[in-house]
C-alpha cells in the first residue's frame, strides 16, 4: 500500500515537472513571438514583396551583421513609408546565421524555399556569404551581399565565370588596396611599410596581400609583415619589432576594435608613425577605444564618410541617428544602399520576379548611393570612388576620393 502511494507520488511529481516545463516554454514562446513580431512588418502576404535578410546577429561578428541589418531596415522603412515599390510594400524577413557557415546556408534555404523571398541580402562576412551563394545559385534567387569582399563570392574561381545571381555593394580587396597604396606612396610619401593584418580573417588577409602587390608595383618596399589572431589583445611585441624594422608607415587592414588597440598600444610604446587602414576601421568606437589624440596621423580607405557634406549622405546620417541614436558606420551605409539598390532594380524591372530583378541588377548604371555612384562591372563588383579619411582629433575628415587605377 505504502509502495503504491509512493509510486503515484513520483508520477505526480513528474507530471508537475512536465507541466512546469511546458509553462516555461510557452512563456518563452510568447516572449519570442513578441520580440520577433516587432522585427517584421505587416505580415499580410500576397501584397508584399519578401526580401530575405540573412545576417550575423549573434556570435563573434554580431556587430557587423546587426549594423548592416539596421541600415537595411531603415531603408525599407523609408521605402514603405513612401508607398513601397510597384504598389506593394516590402516585407523584410530577418534571420540570424550566428556567423556560422552552415547556419547561413540553412537560413538561405529556408528563406528561399519556405518563405518565398525574391531577393536575398547578406551576409556580412565572406564565409557566411559563400555558404549562401550555392543555394541562391541553385534556386536562381539574386543575392546581394554588403560586405563580403572576397573575389570568389561573385566569380567562380574554378571556371573564372561570373556567378549569374550574385552581386555586392562593397568594393573588393584589390581596388581598396590599390587606392591605399597609391595614397601611401604619393600622398604620404611612404617608402617602407610594415603590414599588420588579422590572420584569422580573410578580408584582412586579402587586403594585406593586395596592398603588398600594389605598393611594390609602384616602387615601395614592404619591410615586415605580421598577422594577429582574433583573440589577441596584446600587440606590443610585434609593434616593437616593426619600429625596429625601420618602417615609415604601418598598414593595418583590420577591424576597428583591434586596430584601435594596435594604434593606442603603438602610441604607448612611443611609435609615432602614420597608420593606414581600410573600411574595417569605420566605427565611432574607433575613437573612443583608441583615444582621439592617438589617432592623429592615421588614415583609412572607406566606402563613404559620414562627414561627406553631400546631401544624400547627410540625410541618411540624420535619419539613422534619429532611429538608432548613433552615427552609421560603413556596414549600415552599405546595408542601406543594398536595400535601395534591390528596390531600384525591382522598379526598373517592373516586376518582383527574381529573374527580372537579377537582370536589372546586372544592368545597374550610376546608381546614386550613399557610398558613391555605383555601377556593376562584368564581375558584378561595384565600380565607385573610394573615400580616404583622415582622423583629426577624433573626427573623421574626408581627405580625398580616388578611383582605383588598375
Amino acid at each position, binding site marked *: 500500500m505504502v509502495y503504491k502511494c509512493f509510486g503515484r507520488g513520483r508520477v505526480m511529481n513528474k507530471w508537475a*515537472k512536465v507541466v512546469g516545463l511546458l509553462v516555461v*516554454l510557452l512563456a518563452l514562446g510568447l516572449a519570442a513571438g513578441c520580440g520577433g513580431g516587432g522585427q517584421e512588418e505587416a505580415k499580410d502576404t500576397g501584397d508584399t514583396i519578401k526580401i530575405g535578410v540573412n545576417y550575423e546577429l549573434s556570435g563573434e561578428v554580431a556587430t557587423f551583421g546587426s549594423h548592416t541589418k539596421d541600415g537595411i531596415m531603415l531603408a525599407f522603412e523609408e521605402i514603405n513609408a513612401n508607398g513601397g515599390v510597384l504598389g506593394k510594400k516590402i516585407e523584410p524577413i530577418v534571420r540570424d546565421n550566428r556567423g556560422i557557415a552552415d547556419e547561413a546556408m540553412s537560413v538561405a534555404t529556408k528563406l528561399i524555399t519556405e518563405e518565398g523571398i525574391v531577393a536575398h541580402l547578406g551576409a556580412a562576412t565572406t564565409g557566411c556569404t559563400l555558404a549562401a551563394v550555392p543555394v541562391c545559385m541553385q534556386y536562381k534567387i539574386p543575392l546581394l551581399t554588403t560586405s563580403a569582399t572576397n573575389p570568389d563570392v561573385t566569380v567562380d574561381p574554378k571556371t573564372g565565370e561570373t556567378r549569374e545571381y550574385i552581386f555586392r555593394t562593397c568594393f573588393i580587396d584589390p581596388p581598396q588596396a590599390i587606392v591605399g597604396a597609391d595614397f601611401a606612396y604619393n600622398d604620404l610619401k611612404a617608402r617602407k611599410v610594415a603590414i599588420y593584418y588579422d590572420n584569422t580573417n580573410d578580408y584582412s588577409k586579402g587586403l594585406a596581400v593586395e596592398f603588398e602587390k600594389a605598393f611594390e608595383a609602384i616602387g615601395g618596399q614592404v619591410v615586415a609583415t605580421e598577422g594577429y589572431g582574433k583573440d589577441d589583445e596584446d600587440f606590443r611585441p610585434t609593434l616593437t619589432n616593426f619600429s625596429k624594422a625601420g618602417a615609415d608607415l604601418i598598414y593595418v587592414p583590420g577591424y576597428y576594435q583591434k586596430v584601435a588597440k594596435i594604434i593606442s598600444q603603438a602610441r604607448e610604446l612611443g611609435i609615432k608613425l602614420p597608420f593606414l587602414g581600410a573600411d574595417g576601421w569605420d566605427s565611432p568606437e574607433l575613437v573612443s577605444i583608441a583615444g582621439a589624440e592617438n589617432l592623429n596621423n592615421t588614415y583609412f580607405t572607406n566606402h563613404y564618410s559620414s562627414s561627406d557634406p553631400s546631401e544624400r549622405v547627410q540625410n541618411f546620417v540624420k535619419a539613422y541617428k534619429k532611429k538608432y541614436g548613433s552615427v552609421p558606420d560603413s556596414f549600415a551605409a552599405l546595408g542601406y544602399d543594398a536595400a535601395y539598390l534591390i528596390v531600384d532594380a525591382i522598379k526598373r524591372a517592373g516586376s518582383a520576379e527574381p529573374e527580372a530583378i537579377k537582370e536589372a541588377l546586372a544592368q545597374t548604371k550610376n546608381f546614386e548611393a550613399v557610398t558613391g555612384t555605383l555601377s556593376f562591372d562584368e564581375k558584378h563588383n561595384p565600380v565607385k570612388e573610394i573615400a580616404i579619411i583622415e582622423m583629426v582629433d577624433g573626427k573623421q575628415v574626408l581627405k580625398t576620393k580616388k578611383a582605383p587605377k588598375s
Partner: protein
Amino acid sequence: MDKQRLWLNVGVAATLAVVYFAVDWLIKTGIITPFQQLNLYLIGINIILAVSLNLIVGFTGQLALGHAGFMAVGAYISAVLTTKIGIPFLPATLAGALAAALMGIIIGLPTLRLRGDYLAIATLGFGEIVRGILINIEYVGGAAGLIGIKQYCTWPWLFFWTLITVLFIKNFINSTHGRACIAIREDEIAAEAMGINTTKYKVLAFSIGAFFAGIAGAIYAHYFFLIQPNTFSILKSFDALLLVVFGGLGSLTGSIIAAVFVTLITALLQDLAQLRMVIYAVLLIIIMIFRPQGLLGTKEVTFEVLCKKMGGTTWHCSK
C-alpha cells in the same frame, strides 16, 4: 532463440529498408522540402557525432572535448582529396576518416595518463591545435576556408554512413570489447585487475570515435560546399558533448534521439532571429535541470523494450 533473433533482424532490416526508400521517394517527389532535407543531413551528421563521441565519453568514460578536431581532419582531408586531387567521394571519405582515426591514436596514446578534467583540457587543446594549424595552411584556404567543394553527399550516402556508424558502435558495445570499455568507465583499476588492457581499449575507443567523427566531417564538407577552420571550434565539440549528455551517457538510442531533437529545436528556433540563442540556452539549462541523467539515462530503446511497453508479447530472448 536463434530463430527469434533472425526474425528480429529481418524485421529491423525491413523497417530500415522501408525508411530508406520512403525518404528517398519523398525527397525525389519534393514532399520533403529542401530546408527539411538540409536538416535531415544535419540530423545524420549529429547522430554520427553523438554516437561516436558517446563511445569515448559515455561508454569508456573518458571526457574528451576535441571531437570537432577529429571532424575537421576528416572534413579537410576528404575535401582536399575530392576537390584538389579529384579522388572519388567514397575513398576520400575513408581516407579522411582514417586520418582522423590516426589522430585519435596520436592524441590518445600520450594523453591517456590524464584523468578527468586534465584529459578534457588536453583534448580541448588538441582541437584548438588542429584549428590553429588549418588557419595557417594557405593550401586549404586558411581562415577563409576551403571553397568549391562539390555536393557529393546524397541521401544514400548519408543513410549508409549513419547506419554503418550506429551498427558498428552498437555491435562493438555489445561485445566483450564494449564490456571492457564500460568496465574501464566503471572502475579503471578493477578493470585492469580483471585482465583488461586499459590503454589499448582507451586508444581503441578514441580511434573508433575519431574515425566516425572524420566520417561526419567528410559528409559535412560534401554537403555544405565549404569548410572553415572556425566551424570546427570548441563550440562544435561542446555541441557534440551536449548531444551525448542530453541523450544519456552510455545510451546510443539516447544519442540518436537527442541528435534529432536538438537539430529540430535549432531549426525551429531559427525564425526568432536574435532571440534564438537566448531561448536555446534557457532550454538547455531547463532540460538539464529536469533530466540531469539525460533523456534515457543509460537505458536503450530496443524493439524488445518497445514490445514490452506496448504490452505485446515479451521476447524471452536471453542474451
